[in-house]
């Protein structure tokens, strides 16, 4: 049972924020005295690289929108770096021991940007809407059988089966709360407020000039006065890597997140004393790259061939030469960023080309004409950057052990159709998000019931294992964290043995910021939190 009485928690939270601020200051701003008061005012210009299709994620999961949706529309909870929930729109909560009842006390005196009061009705409506319309919400809230409003600021969710990931799914960007009176009775996906959001957040949407920027202004009636500290927030979409770097160096952009900076530019940026780098705060996404094997290919259906490929590839080479050290080599499907479920106690495939050759001989594919055993294609998700370079390296490594491998590049839409609809691929080199929980982010890739041609980023390998299915299904409804962890460790051992995909690396993600920008990353959501605490130091 988790209980957080408001009186106890509020000071703790403030103390926590203060200590984080002090740590941030101590590590990045040697010139500024400790305990500096947050400064009011100023405009923060942010580059998020990609223009999102919508500005609030009530019926969408577009990656780039994570950084903007949370600024206007808050969720019930926020999280520290360890995923411990902290109050946001919910001030107290209890989860029944059997995991079938969630009770929330909601914050009072909160108003939406249009002046209406925030009540339990809005929360009930939003959760119902997420359950029906949000691509991930359908699964997250699948077990929620009824949503009961118990009072103006009190609500309970009743579940059919435990959903142990539910309490980590209530972040602003994942499960935003929208005003019922503006959404009720409309087609949710086409509601005009998806592109002109109204929420309870610290920033009020002002204008969106497509292709250029979104402008937010300070919410003067924010419930957590005197926050927010910033007067204005400008979000830009400079996608071109060279232009993005230029915008950082000229100081036109004070914070960049989610952009593809060439790794070769890192040394120069790191040498710039005005800039800071933050790698924490991406644990709500946890990206990894993996090489997925198509089990419908007659060679790759053979477990020995897949193991041989694993032995032929040096993941440390990918880390050091392609990512220039800004990544971690992986042994299994869980990113080290998802600390609560990560295990290092897994079977390992150390780089050993001789062993790879032996396995391929054993599998019955000796070297033939020109030393070639058989031919494969490898398709990277994107036609440029680290994905393509990794694919090129893998092709070289496999050529050395006698598997003639060709890299095929295509744009994203063609890749998605080729792999998931046409199933015309051998090895797909993909980026995947582990998200905040393995049931939400990892199960879809390995569960045999999620082999669904036509659905992107499902079980593309066509991997089927009764044991893996059993472990995933048991973990999905196991309320006890220890037992759940044990199930996921068994699952990881199973898939590392079966190798439907070879997990390669977990690339580091970065917030690159001007050191005057304080409090941009305070927890697991990173810059995807509501941003109320951000201020510009002088």
């Amino acid at each position, binding site marked *: 049972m988790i209980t957080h009485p408001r009186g106890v928690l509020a000071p703790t939270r403030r103390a926590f924020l203060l200590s984080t601020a002090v740590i941030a200051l101590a590590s990045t701003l040697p010139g500024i005295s400790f305990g500096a008061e947050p400064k009011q005012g100023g405009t923060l210009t942010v580059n998020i690289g990609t223009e999102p299709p919508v500005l609030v994620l009530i019926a969408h999961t577009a990656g780039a929108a994570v950084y903007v949706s949370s600024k206007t529309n808050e969720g019930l909870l926020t999280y520290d770096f360890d995923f411990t929930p902290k109050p946001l729109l919910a001030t107290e909560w209890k989860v029944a021991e059997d995991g079938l009842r969630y009770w929330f006390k909601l914050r009072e005196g909160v108003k939406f940007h249009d002046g209406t009061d925030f009540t339990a009705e809005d929360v009930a409506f939003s959760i119902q809407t997420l359950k029906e319309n949000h*691509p991930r919400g359908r699964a997250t809230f699948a077990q929620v059988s009824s949503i009961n409003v118990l009072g103006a600021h009190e609500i309970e969710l009743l579940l059919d089966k435990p959903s142990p990931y539910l309490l980590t799914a209530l972040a602003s960007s994942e499960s935003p709360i929208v005003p019922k009176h503006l959404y009720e009775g409309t087609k949710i996906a086409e509601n005009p407020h998806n592109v002109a959001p109204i929420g309870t957040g610290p920033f009020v949407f002002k204008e969106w000039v497509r292709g250029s920027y979104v402008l937010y202004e300070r919410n003067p009636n924010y419930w957590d006065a005197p926050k927010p500290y910033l007067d204005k927030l400008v979000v830009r979409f400079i996608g071109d890597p060279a232009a993005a770097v230029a915008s950082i160096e000229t100081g036109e952009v004070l914070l960049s997140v989610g952009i593809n900076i060439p790794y070769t530019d890192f040394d120069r940026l790191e040498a710039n004393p005005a800039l800071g780098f933050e790698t924490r705060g991406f644990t709500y996404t946890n990206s990894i790259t993996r090489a997925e094997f198509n089990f419908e290919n007659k060679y790759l259906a053979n477990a020995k061939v897949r193991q041989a490929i694993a032995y032929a590839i040096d993941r440390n080479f990918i880390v050091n030469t392609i990512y220039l050290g800004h990544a971690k080599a992986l042994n299994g499907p869980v990113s080290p960023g998802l600390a609560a479920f990560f295990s290092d106690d897994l079977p390992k495939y150390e780089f050993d080309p001789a062993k790879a050759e032996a396995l391929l001989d054993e599998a019955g594919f000796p070297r033939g004409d020109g030393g070639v055993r058989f031919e494969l294609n490898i398709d990277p998700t994107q036609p440029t950057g680290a994905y393509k370079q990794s694919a090129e390296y893998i092709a070289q490594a496999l050529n050395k052990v006698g598997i003639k491998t060709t890299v095929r590049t295509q744009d994203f839409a063609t890749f998605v159709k080729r792999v998931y609809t046409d199933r015309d691929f051998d090895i797909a080199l993909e980026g995947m998000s582990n998200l905040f929980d393995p049931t939400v982010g990892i199960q879809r890739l390995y569960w045999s019931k999620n082999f669904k041609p036509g659905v992107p980023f499902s079980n593309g390998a066509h991997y089927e294992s009764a044991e893996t299915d059993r472990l995933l299904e048991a973990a999905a409804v196991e309320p006890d964290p220890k037992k759940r962890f044990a199930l996921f460790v068994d699952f990881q051992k199973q898939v590392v043995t079966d190798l439907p995909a070879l997990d390669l690396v977990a690339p580091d993600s970065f917030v690159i910021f001007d050191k005057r920008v304080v409090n941009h990353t305070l927890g697991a959501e990173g810059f995807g939190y509501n941003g109320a605490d951000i201020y510009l130091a002088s």
Partner: protein
Amino acid sequence: MSSLPRIARALRRTVLQAIPTVIGIVILNFFLLQLAPGDAADVMAGEAGSATEETMAAMRSRFGLNLPMLDQLLAYLNNLVHFSLGFSPRYSMQVSDLIGQRLPGTLTLMAMALAIALLIGLTLGSLMAAFAGRLPDRLISIFSLLFYSVPGFWIGLMLIVLFSVTLGWLPSGGNGTIGSDLSGWAGIVDKARYMVLPATSLALFYVAIYARLTRAAMLEVRNQDFVRTAYAKGLSPAVVTVKHILRNALIPITTMAGMHVGGMLGGAVVVETVYSWPGLGRLAFEAVMGRDYTVLLGILLLSSLLVILANAVVDILQTWLDPRIGEL
């Protein structure tokens, strides 16, 4: 004025030819776009990464992608007949609004680039012709060849490195100071500051072309009989150069400039990307990547109209420049 009826005739002919051309372009574009693998639902679901069969089906029916191809074409043509460019699934906006937001930016950038290219190109070309075979001609030739062969994105990036990062004189991207309420003269100066670098990057390639063209055309015209006549009747060399030689040399240049309007729309993609300029080129690029065909068809339709319009303007300009053109 005696040239008016000729101009009216040229206009009428252009309009009559434009209608079937546009209809042909729309239908051709539609089928061409169907050849690209994947659709908007694939991309959106791929970006989201958590799709299910139901969400995919719901998206396709919402976008009308589940209809047979011919029905989709008819639906689109029906929209066009009602003066609607359709609704973009990706941007959740009317395509006409989406394009309307971007069009002014692209047009001003193009106009500015074309103006710079013509002005500098004509000047340099005239200089080259005047000094044909001598040192200034050779020097300008080298520079124009350089501008012609260096890719636009590289010039763009180098200009950013020099003028924004190193010198800090001009902004590195965007099309105006965000959130500023500048109006009047200050507003124009602000916009101009943002436009200098992208317009120059876009123009340099064309400067080279126009300079070479002007040089060749002027050298050719210079040897004509009427030029000798003009000199013979005692006109000053400057008047002869501007009124007789340059005016006649303008015919091939205006023809090329008209064709370049279409080319600039394409070349603008690169410059718009480098300078984060919110223009049509980038919108078109994003629409291709997102397989948002309604947007792309709208842009292609508009671009074809723009090219037709530019050609009409060139026709009229040439009828004015050369009284022999357009006479029956």
